[in-house]
């Protein structure tokens, strides 16, 4: 929910509180219908992405955390926890009720530490989100979380296109304190508007064409950390937190967008502090 909406709803709710209780809950009673609708939609999406492969529920291989009610639908923080790191080959994030539900896929390499992965996404409707991991033995497991937010895909960036495109492809990377022989937590920030193609320029009434990072590869030396396939559901100015196993060689980042933009950066690997 965007701040303005919070204000608008706040006004209404306080007004309702003055005049008495909410209406009878009959309109909230269709929970079973809604649940069925959501389950059916997930089946359709899963089939489209994973074909006929079986996806089993899990509460240990992947956990999906998101705010139950997002402050800003265009910037919803997601945390994927995958503690059994040697078993994880890839993870997909699906935002069921976004018009383009398949938000991101990460394929991990030998330099990855999958225990925690964070990113920020756009959420268009109150929705189930799914994280699906593929284990090294080729099986699929899913975790689910419901998120309340809406309008994130079409929310304008609040600046001109020109301004939003300034410095596109600039990157920064931060590392948490490194300890010898331990994985390091890294934060990669990329300047890029990640235009969804659903955002209207309010003055010209034109839609800004989609321009988003669709491929992102991070390596430690010549060992891959991950390759991300991205989509319009990833928030503007992507920020990704991930774990990596450094070996002293530079951390390489290569990003590309759907309009042919390509950027590479090299960062000095973190060195143990003691």
């Amino acid at each position, binding site marked *: 929910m965007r701040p303005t909406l919070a204000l608008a709803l706040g*006004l209404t709710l306080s007004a309702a509180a003055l005049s008495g209780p909410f209406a009878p809950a009959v309109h909230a009673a269709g929970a079973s219908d809604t649940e069925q609708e959501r389950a059916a939609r997930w089946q359709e999406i899963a089939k489209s992405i994973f074909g006929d492969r079986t996806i089993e529920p899990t509460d240990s291989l992947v956990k999906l955390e998101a705010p139950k009610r997002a402050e800003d639908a265009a910037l919803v923080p997601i945390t994927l926890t995958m503690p059994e790191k040697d078993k994880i080959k890839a993870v997909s994030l699906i935002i069921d009720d976004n018009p383009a539900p398949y938000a991101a896929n990460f394929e991990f390499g030998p330099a990855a530490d999958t225990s925690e992965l964070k990113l920020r996404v756009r959420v268009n409707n109150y929705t189930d989100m799914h994280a699906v991991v593929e284990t090294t033995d080729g099986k699929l497991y899913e975790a689910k979380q419901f998120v309340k937010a809406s309008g994130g895909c079409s929310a304008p960036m609040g600046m001109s296109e020109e301004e939003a495109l300034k410095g596109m492809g600039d990157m920064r990377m931060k590392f948490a304190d490194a300890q010898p022989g331990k994985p390091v937590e890294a934060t990669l920030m990329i300047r890029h508007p990640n235009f969804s193609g659903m955002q209207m320029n309010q003055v010209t009434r034109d839609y800004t064409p989609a321009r988003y990072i669709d491929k992102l590869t991070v390596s430690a030396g010549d060992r891959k950390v991950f390759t991300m396939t991205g989509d319009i559901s990833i928030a503007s100015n992507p920020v990704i937190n991930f774990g990596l196993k450094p070996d002293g060689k530079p951390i390489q980042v290569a990003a590309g967008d759907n309009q042919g933009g390509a950027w590479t950066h090299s960062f000095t690997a973190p060195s143990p502090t003691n």
Partner: protein
Amino acid sequence: MAGRSILRRGAAVAAAALCLAAGEPADSPVNVPEPAELYAGPPHGYTPPTLKGAQVVDAAAVAAMLDGPDKPVLIDVAARERKPSNFPEGRLWLPVHPSIPEAVWLPNAGAVPLPPEREALFYDRVAALTGGNRAKPIVVFCHVECWGSWNAGKRLVEKGYTAVHWFPLGVEGWQDVHETRNLSEDAAWKAAAP
């Protein structure tokens, strides 16, 4: 319904009305004067607290109407999700439109300008849905901070409907307290779409 907040907003609106040119997007939710005509400015933005000739309602009032003896016709004029023109082929595109379960969805019927044949069809559809009864309660809505439903309500008031209700918080205000249902576009409206 909205006692205190509307009063507060009313005072601010009166103060701000003088310095806000018509058709300019408002920069704050508390100083949006009601336009005299249909609003042709940016479709997304702060909306006024009033619609002359119509009643402004919140989610509780809509729910109460639905539970009452004379169920309103609910008209949702929210725009369709627009598929980006350069969206990759073969990539999953599955837009949904959650709304108030009983509503009829006439996407963009609040657009200004609206082609004459679309405007005529809008009136035809509302006439059919109300059984030709201009006193039938109607609730128009789209999304929060969307002018479409204000314009659609304005059109109906001007057409002589006497029980028009405008629900400015729209789908967002409804789903905050109630279940939604994914709607398909009204068949007649879709069939005649340009």
